[in-house]
């Protein structure tokens, strides 16, 4: 039996019944990572000896030693956490993110940190200081991003599941492009404490898994109010595993016309349309709706997100931790400014610099009202579109991304086309609502396509219910990339 071929649920069953030990499971994954990840580059940091040492000691909890890997922006005490940026080179947090604490309390084994776009700035996992992660379905292609490592590692079965973060689609888009399940929960559902912030009002942690059952299990563990995060919401967390009623008869699904635009890849359109037909067959009622402010989402996002990012990233200055320049000139007039600018100039990559500049610009005196404040107003309008729609509909279904995976290097010289890759995912972050991507087929180039489903705030159960019903009669989520079998 190949342990690494199993879902989290199946592995957990074996661990619970003492059929396998945490150490055996860990060894199997480490072996597979060793063999496969040379090609994929999905891990940013992994310390096999340390993992095995921990695996020996681990016991109990709901997860019984089941491994998990996390994006490189989750603080794990004593382990390298660098946001795949040179500026955080060598940074080992002295504390755990809340989700890491929760996972470890339940007996999860943290395998390591997964590669990502630098500071989550990107949609292809190409801006990492560790080089790009490759798509397991075709290594010439990007896995999507920014949680590219989180998606690729699950698709290639280098970890049974993983955690990512989603600011504008960074869980769902790579999940779609790699053919795995990815959920961005409602803003406030999962504590952000210990997630290195990109855009604080948009960031949300979520699971990337092989199927929706695994996603629900992981959500059961990581969700809930955290007094260390004032933006986490103090409402009861349901048992998401109980969402699976199998029955979606009468559930009202809205299909926003603005999401089936001309730029959309015909393969994606066909695949998603077929998936919607299946939901109809399952008894859901499907109607076209309008989300009129959709066209402003990308523009709004690229003001709000860089604005917050320029603020959040101000702390990376070489003063207290991380990279500090070695090129200080003695006797410079302003040695402090010299140190700041050289450190940041050397430490940040191009995309990070682009967003910091953009963000600094929109927050500058004289521009704030025209850009940032205006964007916040449009953001409210976008949120209103959804709340209006949810008066009559239980959920909304769209494609996750307008295309399948694109080639590595294809969009790196054209930031705008890269930004448009998140055109369908950004609105959920601006509105704070939960959204999930599930595999729903393949393009003619045999690259995965994702179906996105969006729900009311704190109604992740609806997303689970619908996608679970879908996965009961489809097998897209069971497909494994050939090169990784």
């Amino acid at each position, binding site marked *: 039996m190949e342990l690494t071929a199993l879902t989290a649920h199946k592995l957990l069953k074996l661990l619970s019944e003492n059929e396998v030990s945490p150490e055996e499971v860990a060894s199997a994954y480490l072996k597979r990572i060793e063999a496969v990840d040379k090609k994929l580059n999905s891990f940013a940091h992994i310390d096999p000896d340390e993992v095995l040492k921990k695996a020996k000691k681990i016991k109990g909890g709901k997860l019984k030693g089941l491994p998990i890997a996390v994006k490189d922006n989750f603080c794990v005490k004593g382990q390298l956490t660098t946001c795949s940026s040179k500026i955080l080179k060598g940074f080992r947090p002295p504390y755990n993110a809340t989700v890491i604490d929760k996972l470890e309390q339940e007996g999860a084994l943290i395998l390591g940190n997964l590669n990502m776009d630098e500071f989550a700035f990107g949609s292809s996992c190409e801006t990492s200081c560790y080089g790009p992660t490759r798509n397991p379905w075709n290594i010439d292609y990007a896995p999507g991003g920014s949680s590219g490592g989180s998606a690729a590692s699950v698709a290639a079965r280098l970890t049974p599941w993983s955690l990512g973060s989603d600011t504008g689609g960074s869980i769902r888009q790579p999940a779609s492009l790699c053919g795995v399940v990815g959920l961005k929960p409602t803003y406030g559902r999962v504590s952000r404490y210990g997630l290195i912030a990109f855009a604080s009002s948009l960031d949300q942690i979520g699971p990337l898994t092989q199927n929706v059952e695994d996603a629900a299990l992981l959500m059961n563990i990581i969700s809930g109010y955290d007094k260390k995060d*004032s933006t986490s919401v103090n409402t009861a967390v349901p048992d998401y595993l109980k969402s699976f009623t199998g029955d979606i008869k009468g559930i009202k699904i809205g299909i926003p016309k603005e999401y089936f635009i001309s730029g959309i890849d015909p393969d994606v359109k066909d695949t998603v349309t077929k998936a919607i037909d299946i939901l109809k067959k399952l008894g859901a009622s499907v109607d076209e709706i309008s989300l009129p402010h959709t066209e402003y989402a990308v523009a709004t996002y690229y003001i709000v997100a860089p604005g917050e990012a320029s603020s959040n990233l101000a*702390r990376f200055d070489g003063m207290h931790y991380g990279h500090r320049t070695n090129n200080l000139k003695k006797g410079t007039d302003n040695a402090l400014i010299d140190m700041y600018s050289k450190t940041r100039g050397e430490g940040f990559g191009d995309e990070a610099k682009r967003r910091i500049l953009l963000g600094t610009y929109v*927050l*500058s005196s004289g521009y704030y009202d025209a850009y940032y404040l205006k964007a916040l107003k449009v953001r409210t309008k976008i949120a209103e579109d959804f709340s209006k729609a949810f008066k009559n509909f239980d959920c909304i279904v769209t494609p996750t991304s307008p295309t399948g995976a694109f080639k590595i290097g294809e969009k790196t010289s054209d930031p705008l086309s890269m930004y448009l890759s998140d055109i369908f995912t950004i609105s959920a972050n601006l509105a704070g609502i939960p959204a999930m991507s599930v595999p729903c087929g393949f393009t003619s180039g045999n690259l995965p396509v994702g179906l996105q489903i969006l729900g009311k705030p704190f109604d992740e159960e609806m997303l689970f219910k619908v996608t679970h019903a879908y996965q009961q009669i489809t097998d897209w989520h069971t497909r494994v990339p050939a090169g990784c079998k």
Partner: protein
Amino acid sequence: MQYETVIGLEVHVQLDINTKAFCGCSIEFGKPANTQVCPICLGLPGVLPVLNEKFLQYAMRAALALNCTVANFLKFDRKHYYYPDLPKNYQISQYDKPLAANGHLQIKIETGQKKIRILRVHMEEDAGKLIHTKDASLVDLNRTGTPLIEIVSQPDISSAAEAYTYLTRLKSILEYLEISDCDMEKGSLRCDANISLRPQGHTTLGTKAEVKNMNSFKGVRDALNYEIIRQEKTLREGGTIIQETRLWNEEKQKTFSMRSKEEAHDYRYIPDPDLVPFVIEKEAIEKARRELPELPQAKKERLIKDYSLSDYDAGILSADKQLAIYFEDAAQNYKQPKIICNWLMSDIMSYLNTNNIPIKKLKEVLPIDKLVAMLKLIDNNTISGKIAKQVLPEMLKTGKDTSVIIKEKNLSQITDAGVIESVINEVINENEKVVEEVKSGKDKALMFLVGQVMKKTRGKANPRMVNSLIKKKLEV
């Protein structure tokens, strides 16, 4: 042409809360560098701030005591600037929606009372400290995240003296609220001043300079007086005032230009997305208002009413909460408040001032029962008031009871008529001329004789007995 001075003050007050504004770190003055820190106040990647509820309560108390209107919701903003003592490179502060606004403070000036309007009171976190050595600059982040309020006055202050009075009054109120020790030398109260001049009677404001780096109220007064002269001289010579920040140099007693407006920061304020704005319930504001302690003005009025003190006496006693409490406690045990007041305001205060003892230590150096015991010994003629003036410093210094000091120093009053008479006889013999004058009715001469007797008894003779015995002897 006459110029008039326009001053507005920005006062930062560290609140006396045991823990920091947005994390659980303790705040203790004088601890080894970087020992009062945690990932949150260090601004490490991934951390989030959580508001300390006491911070809001204390800040609200200050705002209400300054007659401000408290906002209906609480919102924090990020103020960005790069400096090594600010680990996030932004400060959590309040920008367009301060905790409170539109207050005022009454100060006493020569011509009566003056109302200084308070523009706003807002909450923010403090930065750390840089320590500059010969070849390095070191960072101490113990102070980082300490809760501060900033109290910004309107430009209603017209002189350095008024600024001094305003600060004294403000400090007095904050001390009554027990929310800060307001110690400028320790940095728990800091004051920046905006000052400009304009031709008398004009309504538009002149170009202002912002003066920083004063570390005492006196420093503020001196710096402002310096600036008034500097600006007036510049204007009279036909020059223009540059809008700039100037640093007060205490040693040189001058201000020096630090940076001009062109180099001024663009703070790029944004609402802090990590701290969700929340509604301040009306009931919470009303509760805070109800729980405000008696403030200096009310205390003063009550002292006048309850103890029949003069406006002046009550003003001085009420200006310091500890002094007022001491007075009232003593008055509970000794029913002549005016006498307590006199002792406090003369001998006791002068002893404290000379020996640099803060008023809050008064109860320790002079427990109320000891003071009352001394006053009673005066009343029963065991000692004279004059002797008491000798006893008091000894009592403050050694902590011994009056009775012990009297015994040790042999200071008991002489009330034995025989003993006094024999001294009187000596004095009469030695001052024949004066005696004649007394007999001819000169009061001054009589006082001289009394004085001589007192001198010979080293002040111990009961002055009233001396007086009457001399009169009797000389039959006047």
